[in-house]
């Protein structure tokens, strides 16, 4: 989880830019992400969607980013400077953020003791099925790129 940052290209940074200004841009970026969280939550309530609010926010951010990249270069530069760095930080260290929820496993000791067999079997089985089905169908139906080294 912590290395998802690899898949994001680093933003263009002006060399020698002051840390203070970076922090301010970062906070502004975080403010935009939070605004999208609340917009997502409101949209969920207003439209009676079953999607969680932050997931609606995710989709909105992706759509905004694609639209702005296509039609409004200046806003795209603003997004790259403000939202992208803070997004990279949050995504790359996301593991830290779900530690408090994950530690709640201590209240589920009974489930783990009594149901370890279905847990182990379903995690292994359904992960393998998902992996093989997705990989094989994409392999079969998508145009071939260069061969990957395995």
């Amino acid at each position: 989880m912590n290395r998802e940052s690899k898949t994001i290209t680093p933003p263009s940074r002006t060399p020698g830019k002051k840390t203070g200004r970076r922090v301010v841009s970062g906070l502004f970026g975080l403010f935009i992400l939070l605004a999208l969280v609340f917009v997502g939550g409101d949209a969920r309530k207003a439209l009676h969607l079953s999607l969680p609010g932050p997931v609606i926010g995710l989709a909105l951010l992706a759509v905004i980013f694609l639209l702005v990249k296509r039609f409004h270069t200046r806003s795209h530069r603003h997004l790259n400077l403000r939202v992208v760095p803070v997004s990279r930080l949050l995504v790359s260290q996301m593991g830290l953020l779900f530690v408090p929820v994950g530690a709640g496993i201590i209240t589920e000791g009974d489930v783990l003791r009594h149901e370890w067999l279905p847990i182990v079997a379903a995690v292994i089985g359904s992960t393998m099925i998902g992996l093989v089905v997705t990989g094989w169908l994409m392999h079969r139906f998508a145009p071939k790129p260069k061969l990957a080294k395995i």
Partner: protein
Amino acid sequence: MNLHDILQSFLWTAITVACYLVGLGLRRLARNHVLANPALIAMILVAILLLATHTAYAVYFRATWVLTFLLAPATVALGIPLAKNFAHVRQSLSGVILGLVTGSLTSLVSGVLLVRWLGGNKELALSMLPKAVTTPIAMSVAGQIGGIPALTAVLAVLGGVMAALTFRTVFGILRISHGHAIGLAAGTAGSGLAASQAAELGDGPAAFAAIGIGLNGLLTALVAPLVATIFK
């Protein structure tokens, strides 16, 4: 909020960050091996500390609200890697849609069926359902459909580790050498953990892994409530 609460909040948040830093250190020592997952290590350390100090989980959870609060904007932030790599989807639209939708659905349904078939209860089945997607989305979906978010978080990390450890061997045996297919499958079935391994195969696999994480997150959040009502 009184002084005691503020101190407690500060203390437990600092302890959680420290446990995570220990996890990051251990991962470096293990040369980035997938089993050395900092989040999983931190969860175990925090759990041991809570049990050792006889602290109620509810107290700890309330004290670390800042971290949990940031989970929502971090989920929104996943939109950036999705958008940045979205251009790749257009080149191989049919393959991506077919692979992602079928793979995601078979993985959802097989997880629920395996749990029920082996005698697991309904709560466990609902916690298993969204485990293939990236942990924050998996947890919020689990909470929504009546599963246990903490259990889903652990299942999601275990599934990710499983996929990351095995995908090269599996695709080697099946003679699947299509880099984009391997990336998409790793991101769809193993979220961030497998995606970071797939990213080592090159830029194409990395981009498709990011697409797999983002689109499977959206798809699972959409269909999980439907699947949950069918199997209730």
